[in-house]
């Protein structure tokens, strides 16, 4: 498992340089609540046919910031982007709310996921 830090501004260009759709499988988009108001967003990839070759690009995101969408590059990211929007209450370009949560559900359930 290799972790590469990136920032919100550079993530799209980083991923464009990195992602070859015949070599890498996009696993999912993940979020981890770091502390109040900050979430670490991870883009996780694995290489087809290699043993445990997983690469994670990650960037810390403030709740007021907007995460750029990578759907143009990776079409299958659309659904995990919508999930992140629901779960952490952050905004992602071109991804609307309401994949899982209803109007009266707890909003952003994982955002302050501290014990």
């Amino acid at each position, binding site marked *: *498992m290799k972790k590469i830090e990136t920032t919100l501004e550079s993530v799209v260009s980083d991923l464009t340089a990195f992602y070859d*759709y*015949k070599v890498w*499988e*996009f*696993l*999912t988009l*993940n*979020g*981890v*609540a770091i502390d109040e108001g900050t979430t670490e967003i*991870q883009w*996780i990839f*694995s290489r*087809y*046919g*290699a*043993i*445990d070759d*997983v690469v*994670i690009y990650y960037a810390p995101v403030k709740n007021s910031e907007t995460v750029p969408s990578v759907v143009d590059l*990776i*079409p*299958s990211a*659309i*659904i*995990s982007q919508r*999930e992140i929007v629901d*779960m952490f209450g952050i905004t992602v370009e071109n991804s609307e709310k*309401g*994949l*899982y*949560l209803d109007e009266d559900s*707890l909003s952003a*359930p*994982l955002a302050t*996921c*501290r*014990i």
Partner: protein
Amino acid sequence: MGRKIIDIPLGSQHISLLEPIKFRFACENEKIVDVSSDVGFVHRGIEKACTTKFAYDAVPYVVARICGLCAITHSLAYTTAAESLLEGVVTRRAKYLRMLLVELDRIHSHMLCLSHTAENAGFEAMFMRIMGDRESVMDIQERITGNRVQFDYVSIGGVNRDITTDIEKEIRKTLAFIREKTHGYLEEFTTNWSLSLKFKGVGVLTLDEAYRYNAIGPLARAAGLATDVRSETDYLPYNEIGYEMRVGEGGDIYSRNIVRLFEILNSITMCENILGGLPEGEIQTKMKGKPTGEALVRLEAPRGELMYYIRGEGKAMLSRVRIKTPTFASIPAFIEVFKGSEYADAPAILASFDPCMSCTAK
């Protein structure tokens, strides 16, 4: 006739669906031109409960309740991740027993999918036959673990029950029975008109689309994309027990069925090899400490790749459990397949994906 687009909903409650999912097909005459889906009907909030309500050693039993069909893969993926954080080593016997259950699970899950495909083709008798034969797999699962469906077999450190020679004999008998039956199905699925020709060229996912949309599991392998987590990870010694990847061609419903049938056959062989080479030893090892750090584990569930990401901070509660389930990741690919096919085929295509909504929404 003008070019008029009509919206047709399918779901959330429908006879051909086992679980609630809602599709809205925009159709032009009979052709589907656009699809939107609503998958959130069964969202319960398990990811949060894993980090707030249950301690790390109880979580395997909670995540098993994400999905009743692939419960064992969920709890196994979680335990493997937790064990790597605790830096414990599981005995080889426990690993073999875990693999045995995972493969048995794959057999009965694929059988369910095939029977469902047959039902959607209007072949009710075949549905009943496969469901009837599937019971024998459920029986040995019950013999090994004590329960038919939610059997909570895996726990952190190993497995909860050992098998005896009696049970072993029974398993071998059942496996031989299933193998014979599967050869029968194979013939039926390749020669019977309503199960083979009818499905050829329906619901096609091309190889390039499979790459583009990151298709996984039987869906990808039927399209010719050679990806299987069993050959891409090494926590479980799959190379020792005769694992073979089967790649289909065409990417249509027919080839998905064939890939599944061959996977059943391969799983049967693997189960027999597991029983043949079952190492001696303990089935449980004590693990000390609290999980610290982060771990990512991938495992091949019957429907494709399952991923667990966990992060712990040395406390009894974890701070994050991220579950990526196979159906969730393949929804973009599903939608791609639907576009351009006939509306009348939609239920059959959907059944051939073997979707699991409980997994998707968690």
